[in-house]
């Protein structure tokens, strides 16, 4: 009744090819944007913004990156954590070399470094497929992690072996990073970049390039017979995916953590991102947000919510329970809907479409 597209006619292909052709979707996305841009900044506490919203957005971005590669191009990767690391270290190097440059520009530039590295490690995908490829991406993960420790130039020879975020300003003296950057500034910076990159990714995946990725994913042989060059398609997917992951990594350090040891980009981060992508739904940008929300926000809610509602248990028990619940929920969701949360959402929408008279 509320979600019905009857009566909304399209008279041109332009109109038909919009991202949100249905009026209700437009209203929905508008509402989400208003919540993100106005409601959260006005009502959210610092804790909510810094520990829930900022990481959620950054993880969403990284998940979009992985989704490009795994969801759209069908190449399973366990190395996204390391590619995020490349972005973070690149951004750190850039900001020490060009301390006066606008941080946003540097963050966007740093993605190109991880794109380049991503392409190098994407080369084996031309011969290796499926789970075998997944294991070879572990080579990238562990090798890069080793480099983050073993190449002191990357962290400016800091005795601590970590990268520390200096204070950087931009847009007329607003402090964008470092301890003095306000949570709201960091939030808007992250939100802005996430929105920008999401729009760009949506454009890529609905056009020729995105289609060529999906062709390779769904049936690589047929794709090749239609004229897709596997080399170009796979490497471009690795490049775009690593770019997005790289930007997410740079944001993770500059807008969220504030400093990072190599361990921050460990295999666990890669798994975290992979969970988000799969649970949200492979091959869906909306799903990336849903997956990130599920994997990041749910444990935080359990961790801080259980004591808040009066269930008083030891901190580590909360941690154990969280793990068990998240693990069980992952299995549960895979059983209920292997195509992820986004598929559940679609089913819900289809139900709404005919509600309340499903048989008319």
């Amino acid at each position, binding site marked *: 009744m509320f979600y019905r597209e009857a009566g909304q006619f399209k008279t041109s292909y332009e109109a038909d090819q919009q991202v949100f052709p249905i009026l209700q979707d437009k209203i929905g996305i508008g509402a989400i944007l208003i919540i993100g841009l106005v409601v959260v900044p006005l009502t959210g506490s610092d804790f909510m913004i810094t520990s829930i919203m900022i990481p959620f957005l950054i993880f969403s971005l990284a998940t979009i990156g992985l989704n490009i590669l795994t969801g759209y191009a069908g190449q399973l990767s366990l190395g996204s954590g390391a590619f995020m690391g490349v972005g973070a270290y690149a951004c750190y190097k850039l900001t020490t070399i060009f301390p006066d440059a606008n941080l946003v520009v540097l963050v966007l530039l740093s993605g190109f470094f991880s794109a380049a590295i991503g392409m190098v490690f994407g080369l084996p995908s031309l011969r290796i497929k499926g*789970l075998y490829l997944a*294991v070879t991406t572990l*080579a990238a993960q562990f090798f890069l992690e080793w480099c983050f420790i073993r190449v002191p130039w990357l962290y400016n020879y800091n005795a601590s072996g970590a990268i520390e975020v200096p204070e950087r300003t931009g847009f007329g003296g607003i402090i964008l990073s470092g301890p003095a950057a306000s949570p709201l500034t960091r939030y808007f910076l992250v939100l802005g970049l996430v929105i920008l990159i999401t729009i760009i990714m949506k454009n890529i995946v609905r056009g020729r390039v995105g289609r060529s990725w999906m062709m390779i994913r769904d049936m690589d042989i047929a794709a090749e017979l239609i004229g897709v060059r596997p080399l170009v398609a796979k490497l471009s997917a690795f490049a775009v995916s690593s770019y997005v992951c790289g930007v997410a990594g740079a944001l993770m350090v500059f807008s969220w953590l504030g400093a990072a040891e190599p361990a921050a980009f460990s295999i666990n981060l890669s798994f975290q991102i992979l969970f988000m992508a799969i649970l949200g739904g492979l091959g869906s940008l909306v799903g990336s947000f849903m997956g990130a929300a599920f994997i990041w926000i749910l444990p935080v809610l359990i961790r801080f919510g259980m004591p808040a509602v009066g269930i008083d248990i030891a901190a580590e028990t909360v941690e154990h329970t969280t793990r*068990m619940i998240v*693990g069980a929920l*992952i299995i549960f969701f895979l059983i209920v809907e292997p195509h992820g949360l986004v598929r559940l959402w679609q089913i819900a929408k289809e139900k709404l479409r005919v509600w309340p008279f499903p048989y008319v």
Partner: protein
Amino acid sequence: MDFLYSIFVDPFVQMVQMPDFLLQVLWEGIVGGILYALIALGFVLIFKASGVFNFAQGIMVVFAALTLVGLYEKGVPALAALVLAVGVMALLAICVERFVMRPLVNQPDIILLMATIGLTYFLVGLGEFIFGGEPKVMIANELGLPSGSVVLEPEGWGPGGSPGLISLQKIDIAATVIAAIMIVALAIFFNKTRIGRALRAVADDHQAALSVGISLNQIWAIVWFAAGVVALVTGIMWGARSDVSFALEIVALKALPVLILGGFTSIPGAIVGGLIIGVGEKIGEIYWGPLVGGGIESWLAYGIALVFLIFRPQGLFGEKIIERV
């Protein structure tokens, strides 16, 4: 020039000058390799029978060992704890079959892989919840495993003609022997028993196996149990070498390159692959590692597997894949 020398000549000079040390390195590599191979073996068992890439094998190793030690610490005698731990692995196998495998039958590979990663999360939480997070000392002595070492001192094998020193830990020797026994036992199990034949039938073709009256559910429970027992043995051996803690989980990832070398379905492949990786990474780390600051062991195994795959995408024992349209 010096650089080339240090890469292409010096390591070999070192090997020749200290043969006892080289042998020791090889031995350590073999022992490490066998432990990787044991983990890989658990993967292979499950993959063969159900096509599931069981990511949780590593954590099952920790979980099994923790159960054993945890029970012992709670006052159960060592051997009884061992039997109980086997029982727990059986229970785990039944639960996994019932609550994970059965509802997910016929799903794509990646979904099943993800489910086992979910299982990993769950088991980590459960293990720490029940037994706590402290590393535990493996009850190797109580189980009757040997301790101490056998020391060989071959004349003139040390540096400059001095007597050499090769020290073999008895526990490592035991691990090698037990691994060998287990492989033979598995081979007999697969080839000679009714269940073994059913397993092979399932591995070949699920549909066909079903049509001759083999219960898939039963078979899956059995392979998960077999993998659980392999995990328990692995856990005991590895636990005796270091300690039982969740940090082992990451070491277990090394079984993945082993699988790549050996192929996902080959038991001999897992063993040979394990040995290649184990020896390869030790030799690499000891003789070439210092050139780049050491610590290359963390990725060398994956590097070896990657290079290998580029030239032989089907693995050591896999058949050449002919693509069809």
